[in-house]
């Protein structure tokens, strides 16, 4: 057996598996999206019908809010944890990366424990404060999901940033604010864009968190799910899946070309 045959043989199982369970199913999904009465115009319906358009707008808005909040929190915490060595730093870091292994459903449940009817906030505050099942709860769930992922991306970049540049800026008389704006942020920028894209894409596609919290809120993954299971509108479920898939894929492609990191989406 020659080298070439052996290498080709090595790639065969991967090729067969991804053809049978990735390529062909995706082609089938695309075909199905055009099989309703609307035909291929179904993709225009997403923008024309208020129900889908509103869903799209709400999903983008919640995802944007999540991205901005996660970037602000995780960049601050990430810079702090990578620039300071102190007792308890390791524990803080462990706490902040622990949720990486939690599926979206579990995070949804944690938000219910915080803001549900029997939740902590409702118990310790006077009056009736229940936010778990509202857009606020969904936002907090997505934020919970995103903070660890953004933190890891930012910290990886912060480790590579030369602290001497900040020192130099300070000796030249720059205020802490100027150091952040003129030295740290430009250095971190590619990673921040990448981390933002990851946070945005995961929030757009998050199903588990929405499944537990968004029983009354229409975000894209929930609409795909209800179109498929309740309305049996399979063509629309397929069309929305395709659009969602292309958007998240394109965003993560940008993220990877900027930072070279891979963080699992999902949720």
């Amino acid at each position, binding site marked *: *057996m*020659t*080298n070439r045959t052996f*290498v080709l*043989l*090595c*790639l065969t*199982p*991967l090729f067969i*598996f*991804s053809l049978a*369970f*990735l*390529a*062909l*199913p*995706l082609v*089938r*999904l695309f075909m*199905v999206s055009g099989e309703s009465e609307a035909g291929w115009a179904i993709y225009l319906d997403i923008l024309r019908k208020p129900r889908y358009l509103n869903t799209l707008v709400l999903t983008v808005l919640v995802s944007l809010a999540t991205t901005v909040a996660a970037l602000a*929190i995780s960049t*601050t915490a990430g810079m*702090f944890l990578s620039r*300071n060595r102190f007792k308890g730093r390791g524990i*803080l870091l462990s*706490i*902040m990366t*622990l949720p990486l*292994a*939690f*599926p979206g*459903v579990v995070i*949804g*449940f*944690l938000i219910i*424990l915080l803001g549900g009817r*029997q939740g*902590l906030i409702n118990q310790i505050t006077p009056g009736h404060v229940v936010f778990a099942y509202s857009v606020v709860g969904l936002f907090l769930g997505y934020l*919970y999901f995103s*903070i660890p992922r953004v933190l890891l991306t930012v910290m990886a970049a912060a480790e590579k940033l030369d602290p001497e540049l900040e020192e130099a800026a300070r000796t030249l008389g720059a205020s*802490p604010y100027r150091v952040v704006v003129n030295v740290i942020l430009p250095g971190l920028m590619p990673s921040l864009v990448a981390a933002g894209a990851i946070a945005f*894409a995961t929030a757009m596609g998050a*199903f*588990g968190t929405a*499944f*537990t919290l968004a029983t009354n809120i229409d975000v894209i*993954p929930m609409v*795909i799910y209800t179109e498929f299971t309740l309305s049996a509108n*399979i063509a629309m*479920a397929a069309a929305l*899946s*395709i659009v*969602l*898939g292309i958007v*998240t*894929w394109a*965003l993560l492609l940008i993220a990877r070309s900027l930072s070279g990191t*891979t963080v*699992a989406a*999902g949720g």
Partner: protein
Amino acid sequence: MFKSKTKILQLTVTLTACAFLLVPMILSVMAGVTANYFQGISSGFTLKWVFRVWELYADSIFLSMWLAITCLIATLIIGLPAAYGLARHPGWLSRLLEEFISLPLAVPGLALALALLQLYGSMKGFRASWTFILVGHVLYTLPFMVRSILAVLASMDLKTLEEGAASLGASPWQRFRDIVVPNAMPGILAGALTVVTLSIGEFNLTWMLHTPYLKTLPVGLADSYASMRLEVASAYTLVFFVLIVPLLMAMQWASARAQRIAQ
């Protein structure tokens, strides 16, 4: 020790974020071992909810472990030779193949599950068996295995090592077994732990692919959140934490080690 205002502000943000992440976890653990969560801790600690979870959901826990092990075996059989093939033939075709199999990292699991259902949903025997869920798990975890091994292989001079062995008369299979696999070990270990951790926690694909007779741990969790009392749901979440947290830590340790070796 943190004198400047900026540092105090940074510390405050960090601690608030930590509290936001940690407090609900503590609430969940507490609720799982409290006799009556509505009355509070004064009602006493108990393990009866954990036992109740075991009675109700032991099957789903075992199914998840079984799926994780079979998923690991499948990703090894497909991923290890594939990573070697991709490392030996770097080029646009390999890049394209790697990009393509990485799609499940970016495309939401819901969409992938729909695609699988559209193509294979009518094959009743396959649709109703655990192997259908396994396909979903392999699809989702395979890119992690391939990339983890590929990163280690790409960092070493595979070509020279193999030429040396070949000049001594080693066949391609012998070189794969005696040179490639031992050298790729840190990548294989990191990949394996990632695959097991992700498979046990996978929900998005599994929720769409599962049948009423085949519930995995996270599917059971969603089930208990919707229909069980808060204490049982919390105790079940506690069981999940006990399973997943050590795995996550082992995975992070192995990945950091593999990354050091790859550099």
